[in-house]
Structures are given as C-alpha cells and as structure tokens.
C-alpha cells in the first residue's frame, strides 16, 4: 500500500512536481544570476540573509507542488486504512520528496553560482517543515481565520527555530548553519514526531466529521469577539452604496493586512520575550528585526493584494466544516461571484471602493508597525541604549519611502491580477516571462561564460521599463475612454507620472549605478497605474 | 374548502378547480351565499398561479354557479332548485357516460348493466342499514 501511494503521488505529480520545483527555484536563480555579474564573497552578511530568506520560500513552493501531487488525505477516509497510517505515509513520502528537492536546489545553486549553501541543515529543515505544514492543512478550518493562525504556529515555530541556527532567534542571520549538532538533530526529530502526532489527531477528528476541539481559551475569545461585534453591529443604515461597498470590501478583504501585521508583531514580541528569558536579548538585534518588519510590509501587501481577487472564505453554500486544504482546491479565482454581480453598482464605484480599501488597509498595517516601532524606540531611549544607527545610512530615505508607498504599489497591482478573474493565466504568463529570462541566463552561463550577464539584465530591465511606460499610457487611455477616469484625473495622473520620472532621475543621480533608473521608473509608474488598471480589470471580469 | 390539484393527469388546473367547486356546490358542502376564498389566498394555499384561479372563478361565474359582488368577493350564488338540480344532473350524466362507454367496450348490454346496478344498490342499502343498526 505505501508503494501504491508513492507511485500514485509521483504519477499524479508528473506535472506539478517538476513545475513547482522550477517555480521555486526561479527567484533565487534570478537574483543570484543578477548578482553574478559582480564579484561577491559568499560569506558576506547579505548573502547569509539571502540564503536564510530563500530557504523557507523555496521549501514552501516545493511543498505546494507535492500537495497537489498527493491529493487531499480526505480521499482515503473511506478506505480501510487506519488514520495514523494515512498520516504517516503522506508525511513520510512527502518529506522524502521535499528533502530530495531541497538538496537538488542547493546543489544547483552551488554548482552554478558557488554560493556555498549547506546541504544537511536545510534538508532537515525541509523535513520538519513538511510535517509542520501538515498541521496547517489538516488543523485549520475555514470557519475562522483564527484557526488558520493557530494551525500555522508549528510552521512559524520551525521557521523561528531555523532563524536561531543562523544567529539568535530574533536577530538577523549572522552565519551559516554548517555544522549540524546532535542536539539540533534530536530537536528536529522530536518536533517532527510531535507534529506527526498532532496531525494524526486533527485528521482523525476530520475523518469523523467532528470539529477539532480548540482550547477553551479560543472558544472564549471567539465568543467574546462575537459578542463585541454584535454590540457594534450596525443597526443603522449605510449612508450610501459607496459606504456599503467599502464596508463589504474592508470586512471581507481589507482587514487581512492589519491582522497579519498584528500577528507578526505578537510573534516577534513573544520571540523577544523568550530571548530575554534565555538571557540572549540584545537591543540592537531586536531593533533591527523591528525595523525589518517594516520592510516586510510590501510582502504582506502581496498576500493582501491577492486576497482582493480570490474569494477564499467563500460565499458558496454548504462550506461549513471543510478543511482548509479542500477550500484551497476550490478557490474561486474565476468570475465575480453571482451575488456581487447582481448588485446595481458601476465598475467605477466598485473600483473606488476597492482602491480605498487597499489604501486604508496598507495604511492600517503601516500605522500598527510604526506605532510598535516608536514604542520600542521610546523604550530604548528611556533606557539610554539607543542603537548607533537608527537608519542604515546608505538607504535611509529610500527605506521609509518604500515602506509607505511600496505596500500600496504591490497590493494594488497584485489586486489587478486577482480582480481580472483570469489570475491563473496572468500569473502563469508572468512566471513564464521570468522563466524565460532564467533560461536565457542558464544558456548564457553554459555557452558564453565570459559574456557579462550584466548586459542581459540591463537589457531586460530597460525592456521592462519601456513596456511599463507603454502599458501605463494604454491603460489610462482605455480607462478614459470607458469613462472610468475623468479628464481631470487624467491630468493628475499625467502629472504624477511626470513627477515620478523626475523623482526617479533625482534619486538615481544620488546612486552610482545607472541600472537603478529603470527600476525606480517602473516602481513609480506602477504606483500610478492601478488607478486605471483596477477599473479595467474589474470591467474585464464583470462582463465576460 | 378542500380542493386538491393534481398535475399528473393532464387536466388543466383551472378545469380541476371548476370541477371540484361544482361538485362541492352540487353535493351541498358549499352552501348558497357562502363566500369563496379570495383569489390570492387560494392561489397561495394551492401553490398555483392566481390567474388560473381567476379564470376558474370566471368560468364558474359564467356558468352561474357563483357570483361576484361589488364588495370584492365571490359568493356561491343563491341558486334555486333548478340550477342545483341541473348541476347534479350534469355531474351524474358525466359519470353515467363514462360507465356506458366502459360497458360498451366490455360488451355488456344495457339490461345486464341495469340488473347489475340494482344488485349493487341492494347490497349497499342493506350494509348501510346494518351500519345504522350497529350504531
């Protein structure tokens, strides 16, 4: 039977396994390829950070492919196999594939770019990650966002633990994790086993169709939350349909980013407290982490933006006790749902509501982080241990600009993808484009090792910039023609675009490299583009 | 007022309503001057389009079985004996036609049929007497 399962996984995943392997490797290959033009020392701090950042990302993407290949555990519920066996075979076979892929990826980077990735550590990490991920899949149900967070805790724990191998828990990575000690191995093994046990528990509950009994605390919390929400539930009417739609978008999608940020802040605080108790707390280290969270905002915005297109928590009937993984399989990434389509709302009104929500969502997440940041800074100041460099000298001004505008740009543009109702096609096209560049890079490395890949990247960047300029102009023209933008707005947009170009020229004159110019230009244009592309995207989806 | 609609025998719904009301009136279960339920409420009760009920009421009105009064209501008409008798006769005639047709197919002669009817009448009459005596 286990051989049958393994065979089935491999056969079923003959597209998804290699596909996700390639997908996961795209980003590291792209970035390493970009850097390969310059001489670097793999021991540099930045490279450690890169490796530490890449590892969970690629492991997650590989895991996605394996999940698709394996299929949900629920399909075996009615078979005469005991629950522990089902879980064991899914976990073991999945972990084996994941470990193999991780090792292959590390070997790939090392041989192509000589970045010195360790092999053994990441492999163990991958295995433990997989078993923790199983809990996320089987333990969360889509009744409450809270269950997702709780079920995601094991994954967070594993990632935090990984961080500790690179330095302390909560400070940025300092050195590679090259030596795997016995203690590490034992810790990971015990984590693996305990996660396995938890997963078995969750799956057995799901198999009987029972809800997973959360701790009393959780029930108490959600009951109180409900009670509060009820008291504040609006008995009053909405002032206008615009208000109503904004309320809808906010409640359904806009709160995701601030909640994620709050969750991260809580996690960081807990990690900091743990470090304090362990006596390894350094104010400098913690400060850096807090500051980095701000830089994570655009990443949050990625998820938040996608949310605007995907109807994850579903409005279909009968989705009550489904597990999260089943819901993921049914994500409605297609047309606008039929209830929203039947409301008499213009595309312009819908677009305004969505854009307002995105903006406020980013702002809320930003304010949360900034408040936390200020509080911590104040604490440090009171205790007279302010860090030497409050802002990194090199990128200071840019940093804050990025933190404020960046999330909007990322969120709005990913929302455009989701709202178009053809997200799969668009995402695949983008990935295909990236893959094309990577293929070119690999070819170049194989056949023209002396030719500096710098030219390749420069060429791509300039092409991208030109395309973005053309796309922006086209989008605004179309939006204007459809009446989504008034002439006044068009003027403002033109003004903003020119301002963006001037700004990017000013910024790049400060920096040495002229390569940054197209990047900054594209970023500036992308900030303005959503005003036209969001209504266009919605209209494209609304009337198919 | 008990009316039952069936969609399985192909008879138009309004016709079923007309027939049943005629029967109720003729058999005395709907008395003269009694009000028929309003169109809308009967439509809801039977789960039938109000237009169908309206049509049925119209047919009954034309046949003189019911009448519409100005105060918006439909009432069983104050029928004298002739109308009631005519109704009863019509209903029984329809039944007899069916019986005769069947008998014809089975090749049973009229005399045999009448003899059979008398026989059945005696049987029912005596059993009814017994019921009465038992009670």
């Amino acid at each position: 039977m286990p051989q049958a399962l393994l065979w089935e996984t491999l056969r079923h995943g003959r597209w998804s396994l290699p596909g996700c392997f390639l997908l996961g490797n795209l980003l590291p290959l792209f970035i390493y390829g970009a850097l390969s033009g310059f001489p670097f020392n793999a021991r540099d701090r930045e490279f450690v950070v890169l490796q530490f950042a890449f590892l969970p990302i690629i492991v997650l993407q590989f895991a996605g492919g394996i999940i698709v290949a394996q299929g949900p555990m629920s399909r075996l519920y009615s078979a005469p196999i005991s629950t522990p066996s089902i879980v064991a075979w899914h976990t073991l076979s999945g972990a084996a594939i994941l470990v193999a892929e991780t090792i292959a990826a590390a070997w790939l980077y090392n041989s192509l770019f000589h970045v010195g990735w360790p092999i053994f550590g990441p492999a163990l990490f991958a295995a433990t990650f997989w078993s923790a991920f199983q809990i996320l899949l089987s333990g969360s149900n889509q009744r409450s966002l809270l269950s997702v967070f709780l079920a995601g805790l094991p994954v967070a724990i594993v990632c935090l633990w990984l961080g500790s191998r690179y330095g302390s828990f909560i400070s940025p990575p300092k050195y590679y994790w090259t030596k795997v000690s016995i203690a590490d191995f034992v810790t990971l093994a015990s984590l693996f086993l305990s996660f396995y046990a938890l997963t078995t528990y969750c799956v057995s509950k799901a198999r009987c169709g029972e809800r997973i009994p959360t701790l009393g605390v959780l029930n108490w919390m959600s009951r109180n939350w409900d009670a509060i929400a009820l008291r504040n539930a609006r008995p009053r009417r909405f002032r206008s349909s615009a208000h109503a739609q904004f309320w809808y978008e906010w409640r359904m999608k806009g709160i995701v980013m601030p909640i994620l940020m709050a969750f991260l802040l809580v996690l960081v605080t807990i990690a900091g407290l743990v470090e304090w108790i362990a006596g390894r707390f350094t104010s400098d280290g913690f400060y850096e982490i807090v500051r980095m969270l701000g830089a994570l905002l655009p990443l949050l915005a990625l998820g938040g933006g996608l949310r605007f297109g995907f109807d994850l928590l579903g409005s279909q009937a009968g989705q009550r006790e489904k597990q999260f993984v089943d819901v993921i399989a049914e994500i409605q990434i297609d047309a606008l749902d039929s209830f929203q389509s039947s409301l008499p709302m213009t595309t312009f009104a819908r677009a305004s509501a969505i854009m307002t929500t995105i903006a406020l969502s980013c702002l809320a997440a930003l304010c949360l982080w900034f408040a936390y940041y200020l509080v911590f800074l104040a604490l440090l100041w009171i205790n007279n241990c302010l860090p030497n460099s409050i802002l990194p000298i090199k990128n200071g001004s840019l940093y804050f600009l990025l933190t404020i505008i960046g999330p909007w740009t990322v969120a709005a543009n990913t929302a455009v993808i989701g709202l178009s109702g053809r997200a799969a096609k668009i995402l695949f096209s983008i990935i295909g484009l990236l893959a094309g560049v990577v293929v070119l890079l690999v070819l170049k490395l194989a056949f023209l090792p002396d030719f500096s890949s710098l030219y390749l990247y420069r060429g791509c960047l300039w092409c991208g910039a030109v395309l973005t300029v053309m796309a922006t102009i086209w989008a605004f023209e179309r939006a204007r023609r459809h009446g989504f933008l008034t002439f006044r707005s068009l003027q403002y947009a033109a003004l903003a675009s020119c301002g963006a170009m001037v700004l990017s020229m000013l910024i790049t004159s400060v920096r040495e490299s002229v390569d940054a110019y197209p990047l900054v230009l594209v970023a500036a244009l992308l900030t303005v583009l959503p005003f036209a592309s969001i209504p266009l995207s919605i209209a494209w989806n609304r009337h198919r | 007022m008990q009316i039952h609609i069936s969609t399985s025998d192909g008879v138009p719904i309004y016709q079923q309503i007309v027939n049943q009301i005629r029967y109720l009136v003729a058999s005395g279960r709907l008395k003269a001057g009694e009000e028929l339920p309003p169109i809308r409420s009967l439509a809801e009760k039977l789960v039938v389009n109000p237009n169908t009920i309206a049509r049925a009421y119209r047919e009954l009105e034309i046949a003189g079985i019911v009448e519409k009064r100005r105060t918006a209501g439909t009432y069983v008409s104050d029928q004298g004996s002739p109308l009631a008798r005519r109704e009863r006769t019509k209903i029984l005639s329809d039944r007899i036609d069916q019986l005769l047709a069947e008998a014809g197919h089975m090749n049973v002669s009229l005399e045999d049929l009448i003899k059979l009817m008398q026989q059945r009448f005696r049987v029912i009459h005596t059993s009814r007497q017994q019921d009465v005596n038992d009670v």
Partner: protein
Amino acid sequence: MLTMSEKFLSATPPILEIDGLSRRFDSKIALDNLSLTVPRGGVFGLIGGNGAGKTTLLRHILGMLKAQSGTVRIFGLDPVVSPVGVLGRIGYLSEDRNLPNWMRVQELMRYTQAFYPGWDEVYAEELRTAFDLDPKAKVRNLSRGQRARMGLLVALAYRPDLLVLDEPSSGLDPVVRRDILGAIIRTIGEEGHTVLFSSHLLDEVERVADRIAIIHQGKIILAASMDEIKETHRRLTLRFERSVTQPPKLVGELTHEGSGSEWTYVCNGESEQLRSAASAIGAIVVSESALTLDEVFVTRVSL
C-alpha cells in the same frame, strides 16, 4: 377570450427581448441563435434539462456574460452597457444561493438596502419574520432552506420589476419549496411585476407559470402560453379495423406507440383537428387526454 392579465400583457412592451443570441465556450456551443420575448407581468417558466443553456441565458440577462452575437434588451436597455439601470430593477436568486457567508442576516439586509432606493424596510421586516430568520444569525450557519429564503428576501424586499430565479427549488425539501413558490405567487400579485424562473421540476412550473419556453441544446424549441400548450398537445388512442405493424401517419403526430390494432399517438394540434384527422385515416378514437407538461417536454425534447 382574453384574460385580464393577457389584456394587460399585450398593452405594454415586453420586459425582455433576446434576438439571435449565440454563445460558445471554447468549442462548446451553449446558446445557438436564440430568440426569446418575455412579456411584462405574469410568470414565465424556462424549462430545460441540465446543460441545456438555462443558466447561461440567465447570465446574459444579468450582464454577467456579454453577447457574442445578437442582442439582449431588458426594459429596453442593454445590461452590459447600463448595468445599474437594469440591475436596479431586477431581483436575482442564483442557483448556488451565493451570499456573503460572513455577514449576519441583519447586516446583509442593511448592505443590500444601500444599493436599492426602492427598498421597503417594513416589507423586508415582514418577510424576515415570515421566513423565520434570526437577524443575528450568520449566513454561513443558516440551513439550506433558510439560505434560499434569505436569498429570496434580499431579492424581493425592493419590489423588483423583474424577479429572476435560477432553479429556485433545487436541493430543497418540499416544505421550503412551498415557501419559495408561495413567495413567488405573492410577488406576482403586484401589478406589472414579472417573474422569470428556470426549473426542471415541471410539475411546479405547470402550477405556477403563465408562459413557458423549452430550451434544448441552446435553442428554444417551444415558447407559448400554458393554455396553448395544454390545448395543442393531446394524446389519442386510436383503434384500427385491422392489425397493423406500422400505423399510418396522423397529421400533427409527434410520436406513436402501441401494437396490433390499437395505437396511441402523441400529437400537436387541437382536439377537433386531430379527431377529424383520425377519421380521415379510418380510425376510431378510443380515448383522448391532455398531456402533462412533463410529457410534453420529454416528447418535444426527444424529437
């Protein structure tokens, strides 16, 4: 003799006019040069098997799909060009009862109210109590029947000129079905309001609809009033003098079956015509009956 509603019907322009509508999804043809007119007032039933094109047609009416060829006009407007003007007067209940799961009943009512100026709060409250919906209950916790009722509530409360229902009774127990049909019947009491519903439960359609259209493989194969259909579809049992293996063709017949000297014909035509046609081929009419809508549908579709 025209009924009251039919007199009313002919005086006003039709509420829905579809002309030559075609639609394909990749290689599959969903609608094939379809034309349909729905008059104002009354109940219009759209019947067809699964995959016949009912939902696709209703989607075009709501503007969710753009006409690839042909025109769609509701209240004289194109739903793609002027969605607000059209949708503001349409109440829609989708087949999958799509409602925001996270809202409470009360919140959903308030939310929908914001979009429709004609929303009648008193009527909405009446409906809510009649449907027995707890205002504080979350939509995701409602049972299937309650969900259908909720969907109907938010579609009825602003008294739409056109109520569009996609398979309103599917998946519901008889009690809830009665409720839904009852609500439909109450709606059409309002003057000039139209109900368009698609269903494959033909006995319900028979009870409630004034006019019917049968859609099959993307085409309308029959569109007429209920009365017309009943009057022009009859089943005749004929007896011939001699046994025949293949019975003679009767004018207007759709199908026939039987054996020996007794054959049953299902025909399209009026009673009188058919009887004379029967005597023309030398047969005696043994019995004649009307067809149920179910039988009409099955016969017409399998031709």
